[in-house]
């Protein structure tokens, strides 16, 4: 969860090609006798992303492996380990292209009140895309819907403002008022505490923004993925220097889903690689499991995002 520098968005570029390596390594202090793991490490198919190759290497060999889709349409790998093991290594390697998306014109979006009203129950039939968006309008394990969040975002949601302009204002507000601090929070840090202390990491900012949006009645989902970062000037790209990233996607009745990255105050384009989306982190955490035994364990997670040239060679920074 680094605070990355973003490469300049060059409008004429239509495609970016990447290799991503995502290694998770658990070293347990006591043997694990039984483990069940769910991995969201295979990127989902979407209109702006083409997957060329993706493999998931798991060690030790699981007793059971099943690849399928979760209820939100994300690729999900189920792993079961029934023999004692004291390490677990899951390594995902993927090559994919990110395509340029047509830029949403923010001021063309409907007033945010109308957008919310379109999603609200009116006793009439609900079209499929609105029903799908409705999944992401409410409280979820890491995202509370509370008056505090509505209050915090009230100055962005002024009457009759176009929805996407209001969302942009909220993204800007969070980016400006919050400090990126990799040690301030853990996964379980309650959002109200994040709001109070005004610091956190990308996951916290995404959850906070979702809480504000949903407290206003907007449908918004959590996107898990990666971000291309630039090494410091004059230094080579380091393997494992990157991290998982998270941002949000907002449903607008006219434009469909539009992404916003509150950690960097930008709208994701060619540098954001999408893995999965859900209501929040709990739905799409890259590797989630229940283990028996294990003692204390902190995972060693290494992510490397390598830009490739069109012929697949590693591009030089």
């Amino acid at each position, binding site marked *: 969860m680094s605070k990355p520098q973003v490469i300049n968005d060059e409008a004429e570029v239509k495609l970016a090609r990447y290799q991503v390596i995502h290694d998770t390594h658990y070293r347990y202090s006591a043997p694990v006798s039984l483990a*069940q793991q769910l991995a969201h490490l295979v990127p989902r198919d979407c209109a702006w992303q083409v997957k060329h190759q993706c493999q998931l290497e798991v060690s030790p060999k699981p007793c059971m492996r099943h690849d399928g889709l979760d209820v939100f349409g994300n690729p999900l790998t189920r792993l079961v380990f029934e023999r004692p093991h004291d390490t677990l290594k899951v390594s995902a390697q993927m090559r994919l292209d990110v395509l340029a998306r047509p830029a949403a014109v923010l001021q063309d979006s409907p007033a945010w009140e109308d957008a919310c009203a379109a999603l609200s*129950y009116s006793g009439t039939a609900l079209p499929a895309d609105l029903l799908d968006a409705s*999944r992401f*309008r409410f*409280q979820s394990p890491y995202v509370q819907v509370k008056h505090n969040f509505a209050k915090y975002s009230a100055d962005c949601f002024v009457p009759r403002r176009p929805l996407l302009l209001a969302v942009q204002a909220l993204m800007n507000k969070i980016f400006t008022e919050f400090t990126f601090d990799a040690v301030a929070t853990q996964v379980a840090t309650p959002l109200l505490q994040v709001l109070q202390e005004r610091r956190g990491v990308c996951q916290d900012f995404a959850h906070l923004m979702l809480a504000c949006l949903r407290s206003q009645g907007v449908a918004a989902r959590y996107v898990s993925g990666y971000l291309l970062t630039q090494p410091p000037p004059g230094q080579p790209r380091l393997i494992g220097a990157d991290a998982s990233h998270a941002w949000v996607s907002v449903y607008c009745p006219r434009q469909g889903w539009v992404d916003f990255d509150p950690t960097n105050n930008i709208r994701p384009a060619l540098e954001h690689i999408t893995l999965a989306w859900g209501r929040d982190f709990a739905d799409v*955490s890259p590797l989630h499991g229940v283990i028996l035994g*294990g003692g204390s364990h902190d995972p060693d997670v290494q992510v490397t995002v390598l830009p490739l040239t069109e012929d697949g060679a590693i591009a030089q920074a």
Partner: protein
Amino acid sequence: MADLLADYSLNDAAYNELLDTDGQVRPHWRRIVEQLQRNTPFQLQLRQDLLARQIQENGITYNVYADPEGADRPWELDLLPNVIAADEWQVIAKGVAQRAELLNQVLADLYGPQTLLADGLLPAELVFGHNNFLWPCQGIEVPGATYLHIYAVDLARAPDGRWWVTADRTQAPSGAGYALENRQIVSRAFPDLYRDMRVQHLAGFFRTLQETIARQAPADGETPLVVVLTAGRLNESYFEHLYLARQLGYPLVEGTDLTVRDATVYLKTLAGLRRVHAILRRLDDDFCDPLELRIDSALGVPGLLDAVRQGRVLVTNALGSGVLESPGFSGFLPAISEKLLGEPLLLPSIASWWCGEPPVLEEALGKLPELLIRPSFPSQSFDPVFARDLDEPQREALEQRLRNRPYAYVAQEVAQLSQAPVWQSDKRCLAPRAIGMRVFAVAGPNGYRVMPGGLTRVAAQADAEVVSMQRGGASKDTWVLGSRSTGSESWQGMRPLGVADLVRSDPYLPSRIVENLFWFGRYSSRCEGNARLLRIMLSRYVDDDDDPRALEAVLSLGERLGLLPDGEGGQTLEQRLEQALLGDEWPVSLRTNLQHLIWTAGSVRGKLSQANWQALLELQIEAQELEVQQTDFGEALDFLNGLVMSLAALSGFALDDMTRDDGWRFLVIGRCIERLQFMSESIASFIRSPMVDDQSALEWLLELGNSSITYRTRYLATAQLIPVLDLLLLDDQNPHAVLFQLRTLLNSQARLVERFDLPASSKLASLERQLSGFSLATLENSLFGPSSVRAVLNGLAQLLESIAQASAEISDQLALRFFVHVDASQRTQSS
């Protein structure tokens, strides 16, 4: 009659179950009133007392969450049943069955195609906003398309005599077990009436439940094993879980008793894993699987959802069924009934306003003072509130709250409950009280079957309008009159059992229960030793005349055993004794050990007989009295005397009252290990001290070994070393002697070695040979003078210390072999 109804006033605003508007007894109540009239108030009070005693004896309780100790509260049951006439019941039963069918179809739609949402018949807000709508369950196909196996509905009777629905229970409806228990008690209080009035039986309901589970469980050719999954003994209706499990003949298990391997659920027993085919869950669905549902749940079974998905196990009610408990649904049901069933909804719901639609919100706000405001979802931190109870600023705050998030609130008309007669013990007459009725339906092969009866709940106070067991109300049996179906209604033993079915032990005993029985044995024996030692210390301390050296000796024994804090902290002896007895910060105080004992007893309650449990309850009451004891050692001594007796009763139950299965064997081993350790260490410590020949010291040693009387009857003399050691060490007819305990332990161990194919341990056996070969004559041999006697004693002490150590090792070995998977900590991780 005039006497009985002297205090019985008619409330014009409410329907009265007993009297019509003219004050005449309604026809279906006449029989019961005539019968009551034939009794004197005194006789009726006797029956009510009998009821209360039976409840206590059966151990029927209801836990109140608000109580930090999770203490049980006795179930309250009124002497009089509520009586419903046959024709009236037909209407109710038809309505309840239809509603169950409808709600089942709603669940099938929500976890399937969601057309009700797409068609605008249900708001997405109510479903997707509900924390019990479980996304990972969408698309799972359940056997027979049955989501609701048991459904319960809360009904209230309006002043016009019609019954209205106030709430739907779809998650894991509780109360059916209490209804059955109420029936068994009240029918015994009025056996003649019960027979003459042709009250309909409840057994068919439970039989249908068993049959449905057996039919739908994926048995794969095996006899299905069904378990009742409970959240544990702190749950408010744990008694009912226990009771239902016993009545239905299913093992009662907790999440940690189950494991999922290869998408199949297994029960962990001492003899290994046994496949579970169906789970009757009394645990909320979101807690059922920490892998895919609530990741913070420590109560569930990781992987359960996938086992359900693969069709390897039946879960009743289906995971995800809790979503329908939102009060917001009821207003939408009439239209859904027309759509899904093509017929009008028979049972009306109490008027409600789901605030998610702006015009509805405004309407509700317009009549706010008349309404009850409830949260749409259980995750909200908002308790239902009667708006009429609020002052102006509070009402404005509530209005603001509703406007901020309207879809999260439901306004309901306040139900005017009907009134039924209850027996008043203090006035010895009948009085009217508000009642509500919970009615149950179970899925059968041809639709839902409604239990002819139910749980009638009674408001706690005369003027109360809310019925809730949580808030301290009582309950009533519910008598539905009418013609009984012919044939026997006894439902136990659905098929005749033959010789081939004979079972001599419980094959489905979870390892966790066995481990707790083991610790139950250890703690009961530990408390006993502890109490005896403290009694000796206190009595010698209180009784100044005694030999002060005897007191010194017993105190130093207490210190060496680690039961008495040493005086290095500068405390007085009095403070140290008090700490050993009651100390919060002293980890091995008697009070702490008693708490452990009561805790473990609670977790093996299903294995203890009614009488045994009763003895434990009394022990608990005694232990609570100890809390308020001040430093009065005289009272403390009284307490210790009582405690030693109660603990002896416990051990009597263990010997006399339990079948000799694996659980019992571990209990006995636990007791033995503890007693062996305690007596071996005490005697070793004693014979190493210079007090070996001190008469008063020998006296207390006999007392510690509970052998004073035996000694006196045998020797008619004061205590002397050789006979005391014979009695406490070597007499294999004395159950308190070390050798006796050693042999019992060896025997029990041999049984386990045989049964579970364990490597036999020879250490204990060789110690037994050494001890039984020990000759007390060596102590008489004065050939080498006192120093040789000392050497013999030291050798003996060493042997005893080895015995104590070896028994501790056995405890560790058993834990490693049998309980290691019970203890392994389960955790979730995300990265």
